[in-house]
């Protein structure tokens, strides 16, 4: 099925993708990074669960592509299968047969992605018995690096993550925002081609959250990773992403992909800029429509 692409003067490039469409549609108009294959491409990936005898289609023909160095934010109404998608991209769950997943150009089964993607779930999952420094080096340690080498590697990063002076603290001595930064640092230290973040700031109050978003951009600018960022917060998605992808209500599929043409580095005040508001309007309309659908289907 063809994708309909509109060129909007503000730099917004919405792209409407009909459900179940095949691959190349989503993100086709995004220019690929020079030469390199995209980090990950999902083509009509579906997942059906069997819940007490009925079939529940969590996601249905999802197409998604993330290029190298790109920051893609994914939003969708609640219950749209975001966490199913997270589990598939993280390699924790197998997708139904039928779709294809390419990782770094090679075709993979979902479960083969485990260990290739550094992911961070909503909860920080810190180990209470380990000091902050030993929490962040967990991946390095598992990979066989000695504890002292791993610590030496992590120590210079503490300042950048706003955790200087807390290296030897235990997680229960930290605030929620700090714990989240520790978890992010642990994710950064597990260096993989793709970072998958699932609402990492969802549990934080709005002020802390805004600070963390600015901070994440700084860190991202510095380390330049490819990020797939799942959220339900439209502003967060626009503020952070190079591109925002919207999912439909359950069964989830891709509804829209919007290029955020706002220059980096981005400052807090871009949230009130015309370009930002323009994108916000487009996304809000799409999300509202989907939320209404999922609301109506639940109330039946």
């Amino acid at each position: 099925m063809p994708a309909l692409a509109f060129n909007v003067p503000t730099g917004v490039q919405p792209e409407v993708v009909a459900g179940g469409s095949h691959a190349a549609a989503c993100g086709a108009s995004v220019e690929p990074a020079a030469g390199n294959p995209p980090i990950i491409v999902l083509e009509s990936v579906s997942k059906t669960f069997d819940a007490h005898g009925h079939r529940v289609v969590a996601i249905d023909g999802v197409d998604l592509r993330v290029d190298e160095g790109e920051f893609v934010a994914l939003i969708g109404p609640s219950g749209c299968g975001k966490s199913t998608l997270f589990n598939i991209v993280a390699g924790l769950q197998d997708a139904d047969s039928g779709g294809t997943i390419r990782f770094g150009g090679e075709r993979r089964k979902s479960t083969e992605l485990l260990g290739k993607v550094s992911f961070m779930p909503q909860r920080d999952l810190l180990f209470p018995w380990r000091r902050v420094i030993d929490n962040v080096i967990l991946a390095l340690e598992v990979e066989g690096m000695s504890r002292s080498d791993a610590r030496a590697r992590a120590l210079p990063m503490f300042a950048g993550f706003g955790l200087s002076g807390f290296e030897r603290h235990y997680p229960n001595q930290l605030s929620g925002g700090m714990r989240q930064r520790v978890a992010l640092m642990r994710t950064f230290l597990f260096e993989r081609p793709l970072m998958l973040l699932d609402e990492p700031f969802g549990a934080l109050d709005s002020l802390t959250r805004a600070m963390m978003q600015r901070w994440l951009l700084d860190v991202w600018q510095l380390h330049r990773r490819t990020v797939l960022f799942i959220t339900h917060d439209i502003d967060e998605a626009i503020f952070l992403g190079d591109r925002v992808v919207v999912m439909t209500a359950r069964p989830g599929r891709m509804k829209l992909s919007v290029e955020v043409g706002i220059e980096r580095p981005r400052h807090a005040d871009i949230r009130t800029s015309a370009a930002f508001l323009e994108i916000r309007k487009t996304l809000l309309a799409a999300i509202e429509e989907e939320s209404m659908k999922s609301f109506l289907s639940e109330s039946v």
Partner: protein
Amino acid sequence: MTRSPFLRNGLVQVAPLLLCLVAWEVLARIFGSTHAVMPPVSTILLGIFADGNTLLRSFGRTLAETVLGFVPAAAFGFIAGALFARVRIAERMFFPLFLISQTVPVVAFGALVIIWFGNGIMSKVAIAFYLTFFPVTVNTLRGLRAVDQDKINLLKSFGASAWMLFWRLEVPHALPGIMAALLLGVSLSLVGAIVGEWFGATVGLGIVLVQAMYAEDMVRLWGAILLCGILGSTLYGLVAFAARRWVWWGGEI
């Protein structure tokens, strides 16, 4: 100003105990004129000192039995729990046996154990062991099973082997529960050692208790009771201290 909260806490906890001892002393002197009912504390303490050598030997013996039963039971309990947690068929096959073994009151086995292991130290160690391993097995099994699946997934994504998962995640997660079982177990081990001595032994606090009972020697009886209490609370205190010092994250899990 009080010097440290530790000292102040200590005082708060010790004061009532001292008060009880004073009340005991006074009441025993006023009412219990005959030692046949309740000798005053001071008389009991003097009795302990007078009989120092025998009681010290008995104390040491019962301590040895308790520790020698407790330590292997803790290790065995942990290994069995870990095995059950990992190999479901082993749990299905052997856990019921563990459970049944615990439904028989230990005193029912007493005579048998003495015949098998003799009236030396081994029989008491065996009974202490028998009473102790089960709670450790249960809490190890439960703790290892209750690990957050998300944490397991996270470690797996880092490429962790089953062995790493076990030592870096599952065991630390289970430790608070295991420590709780050890606290219970150390008290049970002492009970096992004392009860074991009743069935046949030559030294030990249990023997002192039985001998004092037959001789109706109230001072000696109370002396032995006091020593049992000191032994029990010291062992409990040591385990509790270790738990608080090294396994403090129980509330975090």
